[in-house]
């Protein structure tokens, strides 16, 4: 996976965090990052041109991350895309619940931008792994 270009969709309502995530992922020349600020936009983008991975914020106004994931899974065009939650949720119960929703893994905020891509790859390549800081 590390040898070829990786298409990642970043869904994050906070524009600063979204920009940091994009910059962190684009430190690698092999990554193409698209981004949006809401679940609704994410559904449209993912359906039109499915990315290889979706990084999905959990607490977003309107459609939150868990609802976005549910709708992604309900749509045949996007059902198989690996989703990694990025969250500021605090408790291990929260994290376990998020994992159980069908996401490939969970990365907690604040994350280290210099290792974010490694964390994403680790989460996606090991089916049951959660990447915590």
């Amino acid at each position, binding site marked *: 996976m590390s040898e070829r270009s990786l298409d990642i969709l970043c869904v994050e309502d906070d524009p600063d965090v979204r920009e940091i995530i994009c*910059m962190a992922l684009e430190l690698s020349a092999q990554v193409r990052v698209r981004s949006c600020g809401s679940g609704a936009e994410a559904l449209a983008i993912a359906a039109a041109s499915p990315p290889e991975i979706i990084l999905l914020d959990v607490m977003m106004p309107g459609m939150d991350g868990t609802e976005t994931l549910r709708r992604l899974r309900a749509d045949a065009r996007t059902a198989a895309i690996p989703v990694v939650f990025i969250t500021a949720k605090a408790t291990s119960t929260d994290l376990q619940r998020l994992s159980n929703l069908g996401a490939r893994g969970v990365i907690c905020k604040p994350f280290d931008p210099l290792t974010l891509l490694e964390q994403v790859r680790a989460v996606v390549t090991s089916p049951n792994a959660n990447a915590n800081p």
Partner: protein
Amino acid sequence: MNFLAAIMLAALAVGLAWWVHGLRERVVLLRAMLAGANQGMALLDSKDRLILWNPRLEQLRGVPCGVLRHGLSFAEFLQTAKSRCSCGEVPEVGEQGFWHCDLQPGQQLSMEIELSGGEILQLNASRLEHGETLLTYADVGPIKQSQLAFRDLSTRLAATLDNVLDGIITINDRGIIDSFSVGAEQLFGYSAPEVIGQNIKLLMPAGLAAHHDGYLDTYRRTGVKRIMRTRRQVEARRKNGQLLPIELGISEMRVGGRRQFIGIVRDITERSRVDRMHQEFVATVSHELRTPLTSIIGALRLLQAQRELELPPSIKRLVEIADHNGQCLQRLVNDILDAVKSGIDVLELSLEPQSIGAVIARTIDANVAYAARSDVQLVYHPDVLDAVARIDASRLQQVLTNLLSNAVNYSPGGQRVEVHLKRNGRFAVVEITDHGPGIPPEFRPHIFQKFSRADSSDARHKGGTGLGLYIARTLVDRMGGLIDYETELGRGTTFRICLPLERGMTTTTAERTAVQQLSA
């Protein structure tokens, strides 16, 4: 003829003697039986005159020895103890006697007489076939007292149970409700008569009710206790159909050889609401604090990573300072959130057999840069090649990070913080040693308490909330381990974590070498 008559007479005399002998034997036997009886017994002839009695009768009636005699009428017999009767309820015996009026052969009469000494005698009279009367006296005082005591206890117990706010419900092993306390009535909206005799499923939501027979059946067959003597949170259904969160504790008892289950039901609606608000608060605070931190730390890290940018040294230094403080702030936020969550002592840990060495290595890697900024070197000495214990790796890393950052914060520049992994019996031991000033004696008793600091001014100099060691001890406890320390003023401090090893899951360097040599 005379001879024949003499023989017949003799035979008759022998037969009569034999019959009298047999009769005497029977009387002796009867007397022996009466003497051994625990009840007082007397036999009256058809004219109510005393013909036979046993010693126990004299004891129970308090009649002086020798007063009872053959031929004593029943009226006189009753009078012998009348002075002892406290209530005047000795039956008055008129000309016809008190049972003469109605008591027919084959009939029985029973009554109680309370004596002044507190004894309660139960008198039974049975009219026999030929008009004789058999009297039995039993001292039922102890039984009566037990009954009264039992009734009193039952009343008190019922009053207590009815005043308990929790609902108390008993069911049999088929799930049928046997009792339903006042607390349960208030909780569920049913009256006790409405539910007693009904299946407990009446009080459950459909999903739970569908499986309950299966649970009981499995328990009856296997005896495996999965929910006995535990408290768990489930939903229950009120009479009006409304669901309510409850905490349920179930225990088993045997009553008269029958298995019964007691359920203690507590309404936790309010507690659940507060818990939910608390969780929402923590989630909101967590989000509101960590989101800007993500931007701050992320931006600074990315700035530092822009190698092609030739930042002036002063700007570089400012970025380092900002990054360092961002990291401190992150640790503070984590500590505070851990402490205000539903309580770190009830935090769910995912305990699995994992390598302690790997956790140490990861923690040191993550903190090398932090230590370097304070001109402190982190050195790892794995005295055993590895050790495996049932731990939550991320929580152990949190504990080690806390101990390492404390060690770094209190180390003079140019010093080393050393980390050892050892084995001591069935424990893996992790030691983190600094060469700092040591822990002041007056602070030592409070070191693992919440919000404790050696000196409040430390908070400004060293950072931190005073929660780190409290959290560390709580987490190590939860992993079945121990944490302690040794300290010497002016020489430094060693914090030691002992974690129970998984059996056979450690190998010392020496053992490994020996095995390798044997293999060779």
